[in-house]
């Protein structure tokens, strides 16, 4: 039996596949990789990978291989990688043998990285997916983050397939594009103008639910606290909390919410938001829905 044993896991290291779709009406958001392109790229290096990845956070990951041999690949952000003590490039494809040690340490950029294997992680899917929703305590390994000592058994080798290898996008490459949102008209013209003219800073409070922004110039400081009917939430929604804090909702968002949403980050740029580190300055640029669709199409090729 081939397995991997976790020797070190940063906070909120989780198992993720493409996501648990189709259950919004039951109150379950889809989860899935924070940086979807990096997740796909990690699989593409293998030319046939199990759907389930280990998503690790900025602190990295350590593991030991039992059994094998097996192929693994990692991508996303820029981490420091050692295979049996030998420094490797990033991203990387690794051939692993029984007893091999993989150490992924913090690197110069990014919040999330992905480790995928040429086989599926052997655990039953929950509602059609092995993705972990930490907020709801669903999926993955017992609905929780991975920790030291966890052992993940791996199934049979996946069939080799032709896989697309999407281009990696630099997270800091220009403003984050969004389309005006559900409640944009509840903000004054001045606030909307200041929102797109202003600069925000990624705060320390980033997780799979959302990325809180620091609003140092006080764009939303005077906004009235609105009591809104709870309505559907989608990943990328830019929600303004009662104290004026903007937060970009991410993959483990609550499926509904009652805070005003000024806009929604386009799908093509949500991976970039996920990889922006605390302290990074960020600005927002409105685009038309048609533009978002053109970018989505381009990204999926």
């Amino acid at each position, binding site marked *: 039996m081939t397995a991997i044993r976790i020797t070190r896991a940063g906070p909120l290291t989780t198992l993720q596949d493409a996501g648990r779709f189709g259950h*919004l009406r039951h*109150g379950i958001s889809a989860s899935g990789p924070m940086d979807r392109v990096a997740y796909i790229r990690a699989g593409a290096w293998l030319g046939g990978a199990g759907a389930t990845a280990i998503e690790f956070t900025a602190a990295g990951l350590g593991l030991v291989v039992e059994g094998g041999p097996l192929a693994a690949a990692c991508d996303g952000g820029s981490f420091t990688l050692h295979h049996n003590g030998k420094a490797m490039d990033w991203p990387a494809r690794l051939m692993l043998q029984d007893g091999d040690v993989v150490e992924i340490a913090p690197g110069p950029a990014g919040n999330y990285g992905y480790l995928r294997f040429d086989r599926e992680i052997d655990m039953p899917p929950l509602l059609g997916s092995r993705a972990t929703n930490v907020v709801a305590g669903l999926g993955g390994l017992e609905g929780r983050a991975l920790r030291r000592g966890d052992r993940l058994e791996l199934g049979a080798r996946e069939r080799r397939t032709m896989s697309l290898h999407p281009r990696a996008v630099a997270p800091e490459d220009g403003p984050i594009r969004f389309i005006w949102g559900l409640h944009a008209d509840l903000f004054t013209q001045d606030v909307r103008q200041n929102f797109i003219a202003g600069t925000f800073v990624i705060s320390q409070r980033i997780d799979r639910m959302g990325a809180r922004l620091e609003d140092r110039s006080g764009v939303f400081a005077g906004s009235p606290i609105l009591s809104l009917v709870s309505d559907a939430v989608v990943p990328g929604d830019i929600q303004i909390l009662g104290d004026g804090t903007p937060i970009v909702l991410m993959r483990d968002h609550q499926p509904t919410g009652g805070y005003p949403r000024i806009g929604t980050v386009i799908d093509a740029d949500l991976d970039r938001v996920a990889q922006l580190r605390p302290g990074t300055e960020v600005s927002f640029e409105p685009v038309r829905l048609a533009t978002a669709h053109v970018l989505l199409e381009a990204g999926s090729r």
Partner: protein
Amino acid sequence: MADMSAPTPPPANPVIVPLGDQGLLVRFGTTLSEEANLATIAFARRLQGRLPEGVSEIDPNLVSVLLKYDPRRIGFERLAGEVRLLIGAPVEAKARKLRRHKIAVSFGGQAGPDLEEVAATLGLSADAFVATHNARPLRVLTTGFAPGFVYCGFHPENFVVPRRTVVRPSVPAGTLLFAAGQSAITGTAIPTGWHVIGRTEFRNFDPKRDPPTILDEGDELTFEALP
């Protein structure tokens, strides 16, 4: 006697807006009302089993229905047009049978630590509060916020209290909550600012079931106090 075969009137003209680049939101209101909620439920039922091309799932909310679509398969404008046609089309006569459920609840005490205070706020004894709460069936308004969390309403206007000012960090699955003219049942352990008035053995959410929830929007719930 009402003619059960009569088609229900088409819902009021909703507003159709994008929600992100893969969501189309059909809004029957911007505030919570009986009319908007009923229109939402009726529209969600119309979509059941006949999702437009390119739509992967629908999510009915309190006063809106979200359609998740793939813009590579259908454009927003075309989908919005199809939605408008669906709303205008006559409904087939066969109405869906109303589903009724009985929910047995332990009110007050450790199961409902806020019951006394909420009753007092309304000028009622705890027993009178429970009697009023259970006097009429409630409708499942929607499932949302967390897995299997159901909003149920509406209570009469003189039976309304605001939410708590302090959020409880966690209440277990099966907690009966009360606030803002509604009751709610939790499907999982969640933090909440609603008042905790009781607990039920009923579990709306079980991820090992398919579908994972029992209650649908529009179902009728009758609450019963356990001795």
